């Protein structure tokens, strides 16, 4: 009983702002507003970039998490702290950092520009990069936890059966940690979807190319709060649908 009261309080705290959105929504004009093609455009952009960023975070983050969980070397805790840096960095600072490194005048971006003629800022790719930057720590930390919870003796069993490290990783370690990896991916996706500061700094704001939903909401709020509310509701609805569709079984690992 003593746990229920704080839990209920927490739930209320989270629910109140969301209820506020529903209450203030311009239900009368909702239909017309949703027909606006720019809404669909920025929604599609948000979903595509967030999903791409999540995949990128997994491709790089899962091996990184494996290194943290399964190997030991001097400086490992420093590496882990370093990876979680984007978590404590204000997103705008992250955006500036991305500029200074990957921008047209950035130390790495300059090289890319000279060699390939590609500049990264203000492109959709820049949106994905900014989102990956903020989402990857979530993925790495979640996956590391999942890997640590998986019995490493299975890895040993696989080794005695002749499996190479790569085969063990793909056929044993990853399948057994899948619920944790899935949970990390969901966390990363949600973070990427909501990313604002780094995106507006590094990728800028251009409808169809870099104007994700959060950016659109922010700008709409300046002149047309009702539009902002509608956009927020759309984002909310999409997020809830995706999260609810992920079956609890996959995320909690019950049944493995």
């Amino acid at each position, binding site marked *: 009983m003593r746990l229920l009261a704080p839990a209920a309080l927490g739930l209320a705290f989270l629910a109140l702002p969301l209820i506020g959105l529903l209450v203030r929504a311009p239900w009368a004009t909702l239909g017309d507003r949703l027909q606006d093609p720019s809404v669909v455009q920025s929604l599609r952009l948000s979903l595509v970039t967030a999903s791409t960023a999540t995949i990128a975070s997994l491709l790089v983050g899962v091996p990184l998490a494996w290194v943290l969980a399964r190997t030991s070397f001097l400086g490992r805790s420093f590496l882990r702290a370093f990876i979680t840096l984007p978590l404590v960095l204000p997103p705008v600072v992250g955006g500036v950092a991305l500029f200074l490194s990957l921008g047209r005048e950035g130390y790495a971006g300059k090289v890319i520009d000279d060699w390939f003629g590609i500049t990264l800022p203000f492109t959709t790719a820049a949106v994905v990069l900014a989102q990956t930057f903020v989402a990857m720590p979530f993925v790495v930390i979640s996956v590391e936890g999942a890997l640590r919870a998986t019995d490493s003796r299975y890895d040993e069993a696989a*080794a*005695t*059966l002749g*499996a190479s*490290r790569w*085969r063990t990783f793909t*056929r*044993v370690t990853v399948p*057994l940690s899948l619920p944790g990896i899935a949970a990390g991916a969901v966390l990363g996706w949600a973070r990427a979807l909501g990313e604002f500061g780094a995106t507006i700094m590094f990728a800028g704001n251009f409808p169809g190319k870099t104007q994700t939903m959060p950016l659109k909401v922010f700008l709409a709020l300046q002149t047309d709060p009702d539009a902002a509310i509608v956009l927020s509701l759309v984002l909310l609805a999409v997020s809830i649908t995706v999260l609810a569709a992920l079956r609890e079984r996959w995320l909690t690992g019950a049944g493995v």
Partner: protein
Amino acid sequence: MNLDAHVVVRRPGFDINVEIQGQAGDTVALLGPNGAGKTTCLRAVAGLQPIDAGRVLFGGIAVEDPSQHIRVPASLRDVGLVFQDHLLFPHLSARDNVAFGLRSRGTRKQQARATATAWLQRVGIGDLADRKPRNLSGGQAQRVAIARALVTNPSLLLLDEPLAALDAGAKMTLRSELRRHLEAFPGVAVLVTHDALDALMLADTLVVLDEGVVVQRGTPEQVSAHPRSDHVARLVGLNLVRGTANGTVVTTGSGVDVVSATDSSGDVFASFRPSAVALDTHRPTGSQRNAWRTRITELAPYGDVVRLHLEGELDLVADVTPQAITSLALDIGDPVWAVVKATEISVYPA
């Protein structure tokens, strides 16, 4: 292909320094109390634990030799390992578990699964091939584990307490089956166990470990008849005493005399069966008998006898008939004389 391993692993408590040899077709059992280093030795031979010194030779070729910087990783050693708690991959069916080793070595999927199914039939659970490990009983799972280890025809089979996690019934059944497999197995098998029956039934050679070193080596009959450690003595159900012999009298370190019927001298072991211990409430007469003053600390039925633990001049285990208990009105805490005929005592060099 024979095994020649000298395993040296440095540990904070004590170092492990063990030599294990086996010819093709042999089964070597590693016996010893918990923490003696048996599992570490097994893991070292498998390649899961690096050795600090010594070397491991498979068929005369070094798979590990720190002095030469040679270390073949576990995945490249031709070994099969059966773990105590089977460690079957939870996300794969029994068939896919068994096929895993074949697939890892490049066998095509169809072929591997067919071979796996055949092996599962061989261990008697062909109809459970599609089940996941969580839907198998302990005995069934361990059978799958054995099949999984044997399917790749390894040169060396390592078993780490394979029957320990099973209930008594499954243990007995599986022990007989394992005996068949081991007899048919052409390579060297090394078995870690703390069960005397495992050792006696399955092994050709026993290697007894204690605190990281070998304290006794021999056939099961030799070792159980003349144990050189408390652990084995208890395991095979004998009373064991160590002392210095002078003629027929063996004197223990605490000054207690044990009289036997054999002449010997020097550092010796003296052993006798629990059933050779008779009890009396009065000091018996006659020089052909040993009589030690003890107190009963434990008393429990044991088959059709009663087993007592006695502590005093010597610490003993005695098996007596229930009638003896009642006629002497014995109970825990009672002082009692433990009497053993000299002829019942076996003496052999330490």
